[in-house]
């Protein structure tokens, strides 16, 4: 009895004296409802006829491998498009009057707050057979209009770029604002052209920002579900949809879990690269 009371007293004392214990309730919640389910998922992936059966089925299926390749390819394309848009945009932004630049940055990042479902849905009105784009093309007399713009990899890519662009823009924009304009002026006075300045001065200095944005966009792309389902056709399947079908339609839980584990491993590897990158951040020059 006294033993119990003493232990209880010491727990309360410990809480009062050691604020580190405040981490526990949140950490336990995440542990029980997030980490444990993920661990169970990995466990289920090994619960087929033999421990590796589900993985053998996943990697042995031509359809699954096609979907995996699609996923990596589309993630890479989306990342590339975001980079190609974000770099010139950020450089252009730095030449605008600050008030305009702030407004533009707000306009480009504000959609981040709005539901992904809503943003993807909006593209249906832009790309549909009688949507805005085709109406505009017909109005200017484009031969061949209306075009089938929806339900292909193109519409999936556009929708994903729309959602992920801010994740590339913000790190690139940060890198660009830290550029010292004197460097560009020095290079110019030494006779370098715009292209040469970009390739030899600007690009190396903002490379880390681009890499951070690229890894973020790539990681997030890999798991996309809503956009390929809504803007893609039946053939534009990504790995998230495959996992959904295996879980709910085929009811092959081990294989769904194996595909999920593979996806998580891919994401974790990219995430590890990202954290190494951000840890090696050079100290800002005085």
């Amino acid at each position, binding site marked *: 009895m006294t033993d119990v009371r003493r232990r209880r007293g010491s727990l309360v004392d410990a809480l*009062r004296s050691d*604020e*580190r214990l*405040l*981490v526990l309730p*949140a950490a336990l*919640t*995440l542990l029980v*409802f*997030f*980490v444990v*389910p*993920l661990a*169970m*998922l990995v466990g289920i992936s090994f619960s087929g006829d033999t421990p590796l059966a589900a993985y053998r089925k996943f990697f042995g299926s031509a359809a699954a491998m096609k979907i995996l390749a699609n996923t990596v390819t589309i993630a890479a394309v989306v990342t590339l498009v975001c980079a190609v*848009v974000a770099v010139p945009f950020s*450089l*252009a*932004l730095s*030449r*605008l009057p600050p008030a*305009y*630049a702030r407004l*533009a940055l707000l*306009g*480009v990042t504000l*959609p981040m*707050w*709005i*539901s*992904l*479902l*809503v*943003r993807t*849905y*909006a593209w*249906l*009105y832009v790309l*549909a057979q*009688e*949507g*805005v784009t085709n109406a505009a093309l017909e109005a200017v007399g484009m031969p061949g209009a209306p075009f089938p713009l929806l339900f292909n990899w193109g519409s999936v890519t556009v929708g994903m770029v*729309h959602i992920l*662009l801010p994740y590339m823009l913000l790190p690139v924009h940060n890198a660009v604002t830290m550029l010292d304009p004197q460097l560009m002026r020095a290079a*110019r006075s030494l006779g370098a052209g*715009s292209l040469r300045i970009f390739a030899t001065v600007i690009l190396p200095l903002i490379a880390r920002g681009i890499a951070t944005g690229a890894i973020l966009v790539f990681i997030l792309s*890999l*798991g996309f579900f*809503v956009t390929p389902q*809504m803007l893609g056709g039946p053939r534009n399947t990504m790995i*998230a949809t495959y996992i*959904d079908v295996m*879980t709910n339609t085929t009811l092959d*839980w081990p294989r769904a*879990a194996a595909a*999920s584990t593979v*996806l*998580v491993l891919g*994401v974790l590897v990219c*995430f590890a690269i990202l954290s190494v990158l951000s840890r090696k951040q050079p100290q800002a020059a005085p």
Partner: protein
Amino acid sequence: MSAADHSLSAWSARILVAAVFLFSVLPLAVMLMMSFSSSEFVRFPPPSFSLRWYENYFTRTDWIESTLRSLWIGATVTAIAVLLGVPASLGIAKLGQRSADAALALATLPIVLPPVVIAVAMYMTFSSVGLVGTRTGIVLGHLTLAIPFVVLTTLASLRRLDPELVRAALSLGASRTRVTFTVTLPIIRPGILAGALFAFLASFDELMISLFVGNPEIRTLPRRMWEGVRSEFDPTVSAASAVVILATLVVVGFAFAVNALARRRRPSIREQTHV
């Protein structure tokens, strides 16, 4: 470089920025406009304007019920996430470097892992303890996504907190608990508010967990919208989207306004404590 060259590149910079701006904002503007269309198909320009989709949204019980359910779940998740997340950040601030890194990694995982994997993992685990198809299951699932936002934003404002203030209060004889409630928490309130906002939106806009852990009887608004696009094209989704966008902008605007007010007031707090 000549002056003509310079103005040319200034113009191309403007055009480029405008193009990206339009790409980001135009689809949403188009959808908002089309939510007033009288047509049940996607047809631009709309044959005529009407409020029929808004009428549909506000009068059909399945839409209103799912909206209220999402609001209720979002509010519950936000309240619990703040109650767990804010103390956790106070604790993390006191941890050693290595434990703090581990805690932050744990807090970042729910944000970077693919939503479908998280949802499937919860579905498979929750189904063995009877949590699938319950509101509690959805709340618990959303909670794991919401806590990280509260922890990350609160921690960010804790790191900007001037340690002198805490030291001053302690040296004047205030207990640690009292310092937390009268010095630390009031100063980091904008960070907590931002975290609460993120937490609410993380739950209110969440689809995958609602799809996997919920069922057709406990539909959230995103799930109802998803069904409105998947089975057949239902323009009521555009009216619901307009409501979601408006609600989001109001909440975000409110948070910005409160933070702006707090920033204007902060110097006086500092003066008082330093005197």
